[in-house]
């Protein structure tokens, strides 16, 4: 379980995120949604201890993310940001093998190699594993990054807008693979999403933010209501019944 208590980040006197107090339960996919600047990525990166909190406390599975050594956190929680740029040329397999660093400290055992292979196979990258990242398309590269955090074998996986720059086909594939990671591998996935329909269809819980505060937290069924969504996104939203569930229409 991820617990946030009075978490706050002040960017300036007028722009502040929080205080946020909420709980994200273990298991399944929780989607963070909300308009631009609502603080979704800020909250996610603070949980992933990539950004310092100005006040409050965050615990992940009982570990305080600020006080627990980074090494120990890296075995419990992994986090992937949007932009990833490496100066070194890496193959897919080399990149994924870095996911084992918190466990192996750079010395890969046979067990590590097996986890690496599993993560690569899980994301259908088997044929591409010896390709260099700069020889891949954006969608394939995104999958390679996700394979790295899956190889880290952490119970909690935080992803910041993994669907960014992905086309329809790759976005759907990515969400299906994350769904499988949650169901088959038992990972708790927290994900920042822009598309409310993706969030409704693939996640178990939706946490909606607006102006730095959590405004709604519930199941997709509770969230997919005209008045709820209209208020979160400051736009008139109509929810209709689609062939695979409720759909938000906003254009």
């Amino acid at each position: 379980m991820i617990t946030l208590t009075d978490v706050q980040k002040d960017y300036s006197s007028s722009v502040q995120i929080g205080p946020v107090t909420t709980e994200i339960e273990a298991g399944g996919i929780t989607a963070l949604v909300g308009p631009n600047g609502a603080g979704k990525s800020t909250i996610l990166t603070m949980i992933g201890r990539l950004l310092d909190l100005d006040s409050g406390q965050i615990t992940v599975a009982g570990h305080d993310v600020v006080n627990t050594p980074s090494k120990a956190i890296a075995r419990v929680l992994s986090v992937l940001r949007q932009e990833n740029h490496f100066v070194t040329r890496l193959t897919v397999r080399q990149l994924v093998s870095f996911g084992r660093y918190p466990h192996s400290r750079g010395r890969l055992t046979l067990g590590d190699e097996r986890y690496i292979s599993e993560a690569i196979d899980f994301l259908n990258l088997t044929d591409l594993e010896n390709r260099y990242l700069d020889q891949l398309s954006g969608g394939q590269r995104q999958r390679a990054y996700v394979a790295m955090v899956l190889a880290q074998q952490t119970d909690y996986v935080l992803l910041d807008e993994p669907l960014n720059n992905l086309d329809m086909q790759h976005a759907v594939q990515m969400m299906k693979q994350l769904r499988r990671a949650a169901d088959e591998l038992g990972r708790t996935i927290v994900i920042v999403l822009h598309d409310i329909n993706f969030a409704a269809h693939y996640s178990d819980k939706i946490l909606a933010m607006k102006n730095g505060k959590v405004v709604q937290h519930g199941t997709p069924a509770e969230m997919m209501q005209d008045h709820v969504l209209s208020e979160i996104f400051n736009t008139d939203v109509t929810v209709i019944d689609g062939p695979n569930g409720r759909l938000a229409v906003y254009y």
Partner: protein
Amino acid sequence: MFKTAEELPDPRHSGPLTDRKHRRAYIVAVALMVALSVSFTAGILLWNNPTEPFSDGWWLIVGMRRDSLLTICLVALCHAVATIAFQTAVNNRIITPGIMGFGSLYTLIQTGTVFLFGAAGVNALVGVGPFFAQTIAMMLLATLLYTWLLSGKFSNVHIMLLVGVVLGGTLGSLSNFMQRLLEPSTFDVLTARLFGNISNARTEYLPYAIPIALAVAVVFWLWAPRLNVMALGRTTAQNLGLNHNVELIKILALVSVLISLATALVGPMMFLGFLCAMLAYQFGDTYSHRLLFPLGVLAGYTVLSGSYFILRHVWDAGGAVTVIVELIGGVVFLYFILRKGRL
């Protein structure tokens, strides 16, 4: 489409060298540079020795040349390892410690002493004590500067770079100002000291400098897995459990030790490290620092000993070695910047 076991490069392993072809390329690069270094070494030691082989005079000359070789070795080690580690830490393969104002700091210390104490000040800088004082001064200032830059709100490589360049410029003009006020004869003595010179290196420091440089190199070797992770950038390194700021400061402190040693020995060199690192990346094409460091050091040794051999023994212009190496390094640097179009 099925692949037979033979076509697959040792099936499903992770390692810094991807397949047999890559491994072969790496070994060929090492072998080539070893061969070149050995021949240049032999050339420097034996070529053009006018005395009778194995006589006392012959051994004397060989001994003097051996000191030059040790200096070359040390300078190559310091610049190559320091630059590769530095570029990994700041996640940028263009900038080097030289660009961050190290050379200017050295020049300022030298000029300041001469300015304050006159030509006698030049002699005050000779000796083991002053050598250590200089090294420690440079190390402290560099570490303080980086710590300050990285702990506050400027935790950003571009601002750090800008401050480094401006600081280099400021220190440089301070030296320049003092140099204007010097007497011509004192200025002449100072200039002779400021130009990096391998034939004229202060070899009396070697017994202290070599163990320190080796110790630092060993530490970097042990840290290699961590450096590999640091090369992935701040967020990825943090995700994998490294405390990025702490690691950064540790690496930069050790880098400043190496650069200080090399600078105190032969004077500032801006582009040698860049040349070593670039050659290592080109020939190695790998993330592994345990593979990059040896390549970089070998490349540095080959370039330095090659130019030293040709310039000193063939063209009889030993003093110009560092100038020529810097010229080559500078041209390569410009070429890479122009080709890449960004920092």
